[in-house]
């Protein structure tokens, strides 16, 4: 990390991640004329992103173990002579220990300082910081006391604030460790369970409570901050369309009145300042769709999966900015450079069966892969013809980001691009996104975090069937049987 007044030029970046985000980072690093080092676990030996790095270092047998092993990452950096580490998203990206280990080893961590990650990663500390800055908060409690005392605090909160309320694990995040409680009785039975779940998931059973805003929208602000006290925003993203708190489809900018957006941008900048934020981050808000009131949720101290919509809209390379910020450069993007023209949408094309609870298609091979192109289409993927869906890692094939001038044009472009994909082998989320594209509420811009629950009919989409694939089956049969059994 870069201290105030301290400048360090980066020459070689180790990417402590895998998959599409590793490739995404490698691309920018190369564009900046720097060297790249990839690390990988053994099951990733065939991975696509490795082919793009200048160097690839095997860090262990995996899976999902060595990518989380700080010692091995530092070792790999030292071995390869990398002087910076980019953590990507997930894995170690929000682990303050990696940032701290980098500091100790004189390696630049491309992200916020460890203290910031630590503070903002603790919901209660984060809340304290934000309260100091008069950032609006969804009413809630501090960490509940252990045992029955905590239960009593929770019951008292329920009485004053009213139900439903949300139980949240202090160490949770990314939608995990959250449960909704409709009444006191449920609270009494669920709290111990939530604790034990949190303990097993995060090794931390601390729980706090927030009032539940029903059918809220989820809107976040991308911010950039340098080590010299400059903070700016790059507009909003609407991530309301989620499945069990996992984002599926993201839109930039959020469709909100200008005065609301302005207020939200200001609040986000203020929050970043208050936290002493450096590098790229995301301030998340809940928005009441009826009143457009918004409340601070949390700060993600890393790059987001959906950063692409911000990039396609602003033309700003967020990873380049992250590297510059980490080097201690001064943020010098002029305000007028930030134009948020048009609408952008990102969808995550996963090898999953939406109809079967988004079950990953691990083990299947992509027999054919053809991707769309043309104006305002961006692809961030690691799939290729012959790609085998991993069973050890996520099933993301490619992220598709499109931009259009108007909302309608953007949807049409998204549809067109989705239809131009040809992926044979695994089932994918493409037909499901196509169903969303044709949904009236979506087209009218009416969606909240309840969108999927309220639109279960979206799952009734027809399985995509290529007529030519069927005909090919017959031609292959005529060929292999040496006669057409359906004609003779």
């Amino acid at each position, binding site marked *: 990390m870069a201290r105030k007044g301290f400048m360090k030029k980066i020459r070689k970046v180790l990417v402590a991640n895998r998959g599409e985000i590793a490739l995404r980072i490698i691309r920018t690093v190369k564009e900046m004329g720097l060297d790249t080092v990839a690390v990988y676990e053994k099951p990733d030996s065939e991975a696509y992103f490795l082919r793009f790095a200048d160097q690839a270092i095997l860090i262990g047998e995996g899976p999902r173990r060595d990518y989380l092993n700080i010692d091995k990452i530092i070792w790999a950096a030292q071995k390869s002579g990398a002087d910076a580490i980019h953590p990507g998203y997930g894995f170690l990206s929000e682990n303050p220990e990696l940032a701290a280990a980098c500091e100790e080893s004189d390696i630049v961590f491309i992200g916020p300082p460890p203290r910031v990650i630590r503070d903002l990663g603790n919901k209660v500390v984060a809340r304290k910081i934000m309260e100091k800055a008069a950032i609006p908060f969804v009413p809630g409690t501090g960490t509940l006391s252990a045992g029955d005392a905590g239960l009593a605090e929770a019951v008292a909160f329920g009485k004053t604030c009213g139900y439903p309320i949300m139980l949240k694990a202090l160490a949770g995040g990314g939608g995990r460790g959250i449960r909704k409680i409709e009444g006191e009785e449920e609270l009494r039975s669920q709290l111990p369970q939530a604790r034990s779940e949190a303990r097993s998931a995060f090794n931390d059973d601390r729980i706090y409570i927030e009032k539940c805003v029903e059918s809220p929208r989820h809107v976040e602000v991308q911010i950039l901050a340098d080590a010299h006290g400059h903070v700016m925003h790059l507009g909003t993203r609407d991530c309301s369309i989620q499945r069990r708190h996992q984002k599926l489809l993201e839109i930039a900018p959020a469709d909100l009145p200008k005065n609301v957006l302005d207020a939200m941008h200001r609040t986000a900048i203020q929050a970043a300042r208050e936290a002493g934020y450096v590098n790229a981050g995301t301030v998340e808000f809940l928005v009441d769709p009826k009143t457009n009131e918004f409340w601070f949720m949390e700060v993600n101290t890393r790059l987001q999966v959906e950063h692409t919509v911000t990039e396609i809209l602003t033309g700003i390379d967020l990873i380049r900015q992250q590297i510059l910020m980490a080097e201690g450069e001064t943020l010098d993007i002029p305000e007028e450079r930030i134009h948020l023209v048009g609408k952008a949408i990102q969808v995550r094309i996963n090898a999953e069966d939406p109809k079967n609870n988004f079950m990953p298609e691990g083990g299947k091979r992509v027999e054919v892969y053809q991707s769309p192109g043309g104006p305002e289409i961006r692809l961030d993927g690691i799939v290729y013809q012959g790609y085998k869906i991993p069973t050890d890692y996520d099933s993301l094939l490619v992220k598709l980001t499109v931009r259009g001038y108007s909302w309608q044009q953007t949807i049409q472009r998204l549809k067109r691009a989705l239809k131009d994909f040809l992926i044979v082998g695994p089932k994918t989320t493409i037909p499901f996104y196509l169903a969303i594209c044709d949904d009236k509420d979506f087209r009218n811009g009416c969606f909240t975090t309840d969108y999927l629950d309220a639109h279960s009919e979206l799952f009734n989409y027809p399985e995509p069937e290529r007529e030519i694939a*069927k005909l090919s089956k017959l031609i292959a049969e005529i060929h292999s049987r040496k006669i057409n059994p359906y*004609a003779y």
Partner: protein
Amino acid sequence: MNILPEGRITPRELQRSGVKAVLDKMRRTQGYYLTNTERDLSQSDFKNRIMPHTQILVAPERNAAGYFSLEITGGASVHVDLLRKQMNPLEKLEVLSGHMPDTLFQTLCRGINLFGYRPYPENVIRLTVETFARHVHVWRVFDFLNYIPNMIPVYEEVKKAGRILEAAVCFSTGPEHTNRFYVKKVGEILDVTGPDILLAIKNHGGLGSPGRIGELVRAILQKYPDLLIHYHGHNTDGNEIGRIVAAVQNGAKIVDASDHALTGFYGPPPLLTVVNTLEDYGYPAVGLDKQAVINASNKLRHERPYYRDFESQFFGFDPTVQTHKLPGGATGSSFEQAQKGGFLDRMPEILQNELPRVQIELGNFWSVTPGSQILWTTAANNVVKGARYRDPSDDLKNLMLERYGKFPFYKPAPEIYEAVFGRDWKKIVRREAGYQKIEDVDLDVERRILEHAIGRKATDDELVLYLQHPNDAVGFFKFEEKFGKTWVLPPKVWFRRGGFGIGDKFEFPDVTGKLHTIEIGPSRRTKDGSYMTHLGIDYHPEPVVTPAESEGEKPKAPVALTAKEIGALARMGDIRATLKGIVNQIPVAVGDEVGVGDTLVVLEAMKMLTNIVSDVDGKVSEIFSSPGASVETGDKLMVIEI
């Protein structure tokens, strides 16, 4: 839109002006009209095999040719569409009518037998006609006994649909087949239909001399001068043009012929020759564009080789048809059966002696589906089995019990009844004789059965097809679900034998109009016996897996059992297929006790059901086939433990 020649009738005009106005216009118009009977091309499997790809290819020329109508559906073609072309017969008509908007489509409907081989319930008949009438403008309706009640529901539905009814009288020769008889028959038809119909003389065997046909046409027109007569015949003896000329000279208004590049043995005569000949006699063909007729055949000539496998195996003409009267379709398959059954050497005896004798014995009715099959099978059995009328088919029994309708001239003699029904024949006939009224089926129940079979909702059209040929319709629906609309494929792909060569490349649009290219790449057999073919689909390689055939890919051992051997095996409980056909029904199950005379398997061949009955008492221990399966003569069907 092109200006069409005066006098030509189009679907639009029929829709706009109605049947009567169209028929009146034809009455006023000088000259005669021509129907292209593609469906009746050459009397073999060939005629029903012409693929939609070919029909679409030649559609512009045929549409420009200016026929009165194109006979493109009906007869066995509905069944073959489903079974061997894997195309929805209704969709075929819809697609083709889009390509030939100015041409009337004609069908051949077997009255109560519709497009099948046995009587259908009346509600099925009405629903079927109503459905097909969406695309079919001219309905030729016949009955093999010329028994009018068998045709009435079809008559009524055709009229209701605003389509042109062409009531047919089947024609044959012999002492009973007099002008008086036919004129009277025409009168009976007109009593039912009213005057606004076409009347077809259906000379499916190509029987009689030109003089006989001319005289018949004249006699009918003498009594009914405003009647529009459509003469239909076949070139079986090579003299069809003579009969056509005589028919037109005596006032027939429409005659049948077809593309010279496709027709041939036993088919209709070449259309262009008919036109040129009649022109010389001073009769102009209304609306006909000779160049378009030539262009159509120029295109078709290049396609014909792809259909080589289905060409008739028996070339040349057959003037002896005047004796055996078997129509061409039945002749082709009868020779095929004789060859497979090993009695080819007895064909002259069957055709020249036994068949004419059986015909007289059974009442000298018309040798046309399904009557021709009954006559042939009976005659062949009589000769091959060496005992006349032994093991009669159900169809023969039904015929003799007048379940299909009344004998037109006379009933068979008592000794024939005794040979067929046994000593108690009088009792049986008294008890069972009489017209068989087929009960209506519950369409909702049928629909549910269909939907169960295909595992999804069925459309109204699908129900109609199912009601025609249940097994084959379901087979087709499943095929289409798996393989899509394969009728877009050219015949060189569809009929390819021996596999393709690496690098072979085909271009065709799919049903949506999207253009595709398929290139054949290397292929290999995988461990599990399936076959992996690498296809270049639209220039992207894609492996396509063909699963191993369920019964393994061992080729069927050629079985050359004679009828005698099959009979000997049957007496030991080893039940073999007595003929090549399709298993229609197996009324017994493994473990059932059976006795002498019990029906074990019902085979369908040549449009007829044949029962295989037990020669032994015993218990069914094994069954090797199932309804819908095709079997060759001598194939093992069942074992009975004696």
